[in-house]
């Protein structure tokens, strides 16, 4: 296991360097003035302009610039907004909200998604299966922002089942509706993935062996099929975090939850380029870290990988 973990960690390094370098070059090193581009059409006072040029080390050679930038990232320096605020501080102030939203969404995905998946997978072709398939297809097809507005309009404003926006009622009540909205599509994917892998694994030779051992049906499903079916679902949870991050921008914006996504939402409204780039860079790092964890979990679940 340790060798596997070390190998995964080593493979992570070039990806980490590659992604940050890519973002850096894209934003700060391509022809044109990066600071003016990030400001969009806004006029920028000369003093702010100079501060930002200095902050991003734009007068140094490219690799030195990147080196200083990378070093900054490791010290929590994700750049500065136009009015001199530290983006790292912005993240530090808001991440707890996003974490609560993430946990809520995650619970929905795993509990509802996997339950539906198992239920449908064990009764392939039946009424439950067809309903789950249809429902999840629709959940995946509706864009998050459409779902967010519809849910807000109907479930919160008209029916009054949930708070319309804000975090006044705290966790979990204020997070239930946003969590459900941001989880909807992934919940659909989790359910379908669980259904397919479970149905496939139920036909595996080792499941036939388990049946021929005279084990009760429940044990055959839970001990011999479910664990193996979890493996692809876990892998999916890695890429899933990317969807969640994009979704949290929309959902935190619409439901007015002051988390990291909300900061990006606000920055998008006022065209705050440095904030967007800084926070997205942070999210990419989290994404890579999360995928590393998922890889390790994959190793825990599948001995063939661990000892491979």
């Amino acid at each position, binding site marked *: 296991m340790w060798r596997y973990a070390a190998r995964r960690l080593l493979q992570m390094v070039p990806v980490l360097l590659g992604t940050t370098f890519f973002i850096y070059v894209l934003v700060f090193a391509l022809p044109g003035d990066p600071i003016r581009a*990030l400001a969009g059409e806004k006029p920028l006072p000369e003093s702010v302009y100079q501060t930002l040029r200095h902050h991003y080390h734009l007068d140094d050679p490219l690799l030195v610039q990147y080196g200083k930038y990378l070093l900054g990232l490791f010290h929590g320096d994700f750049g500065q907004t136009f009015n001199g605020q530290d983006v790292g501080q912005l993240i530090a102030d808001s991440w707890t909200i996003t974490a609560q939203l993430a946990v809520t969404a995650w619970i929905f995905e795993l509990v509802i998604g996997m339950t539906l998946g198992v239920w449908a997978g064990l009764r392939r072709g039946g009424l439950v299966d067809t309903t789950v398939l249809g429902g999840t297809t*629709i959940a995946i*097809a509706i864009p998050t922002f459409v779902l967010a507005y519809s849910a807000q309009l109907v479930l919160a404003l008209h029916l009054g089942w949930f708070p319309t926006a804000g975090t006044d009622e705290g966790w979990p009540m204020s997070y239930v509706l946003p969590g459900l909205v941001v989880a909807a599509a992934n919940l659909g994917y989790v359910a379908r993935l669980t259904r397919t892998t479970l149905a496939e694994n139920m036909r595996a030779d080792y499941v036939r062996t388990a049946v021929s051992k005279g084990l009760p049906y429940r044990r055959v499903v839970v001990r011999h099929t479910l664990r193996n079916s979890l493996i692809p679902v876990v892998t999916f949870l890695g890429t899933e975090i990317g969807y969640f991050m994009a979704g949290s921008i929309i959902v935190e914006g619409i439901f007015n939850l002051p988390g990291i996504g909300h900061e990006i939402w606000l920055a*998008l409204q006022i065209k705050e380029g440095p904030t967007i780039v800084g926070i997205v860079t942070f*999210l990419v790092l989290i994404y890579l870290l999360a995928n590393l964890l998922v890889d390790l979990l994959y190793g825990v679940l599948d001995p063939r990988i661990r000892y491979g």
Partner: protein
Amino acid sequence: MAEPDIADVTAEATAAADVGAPASLWRDAWGDLYRRPIFWISMVIMLVMSAMAAFPSLFTSLGANEHCDVRFAKQPPTSWNPFAAGDHPFGTDVHGCDYYAQVVHGTRAPIVIGFSVTLLSLAIAVTLGSLSGFYGRWPDALISRITDVFFGLPLLLGALVVLTAFPAHGIGGVVLALGLFWWTTMTRLMRGQVIAVRNADYVQAARMLGAGDVRIMARHILPNAIAPIFVFAMLNVGVVIGSESTLDFLGVGLQYPSVSWGLQLREAQDVFVDYPYLLAYPAVLLTVTVLSFLLLGDAVRDALDPRMR
């Protein structure tokens, strides 16, 4: 094979004496597809949407942003039945334009971007995937590492950064920004396919008969490796369309005076509580379009996978 008897029985029964042969697999899949109503429904929806994107004048006599009058802004449709709602079947938008015409014109951008991003990524994936799979060694290592890096950037977040760094862009810019992060999975698939086909007996045989790289690639590997990647790409056009609309909605995608469903939804966001129809029309069209790709994808996947029948 673990169960020779059942496997044989199944193989005989599916009448596909040689399931491995692509021709019979596709013919089988077609035989399965054309009996599914879902397949036809999604095909019709896609055809209508494509027609709307290509020839909006067939559906409305107005051009995009034409005859708009702010004095008549935000007039709800007189009836939810568009055929009984008079001059403005969908009402008017915040600028006082006929909403029906705007929604029709809003089809082009997502459809064009959806297919362009798909074709661009497909081109990148086929090129890189076949080089990587065919030559192995350092080209493979290099391409695989680059793929890993781009795989580390989620589609929407990546596109968000690119479009923020280059605020002045049109449709082309959005296509590039999405395409830049969309090719990775397809490249990995393509590489796997090429490696599988490269090691197939008939390719080894062709090589022994003295066929060169180019000939083997063109005659044997590409035709057999591309099909699954192509299917995968086409089935995910819906995902690209959804992503494009999200970018428009967030304000980093297309900008006014472009017309797209995403922009219409963005304009509706401040007033949707009082004018829900502004949200409803583009939202329904967008959802139905994405849904038709998903359903088509399901149908094709089921038809192609004989085990799942």
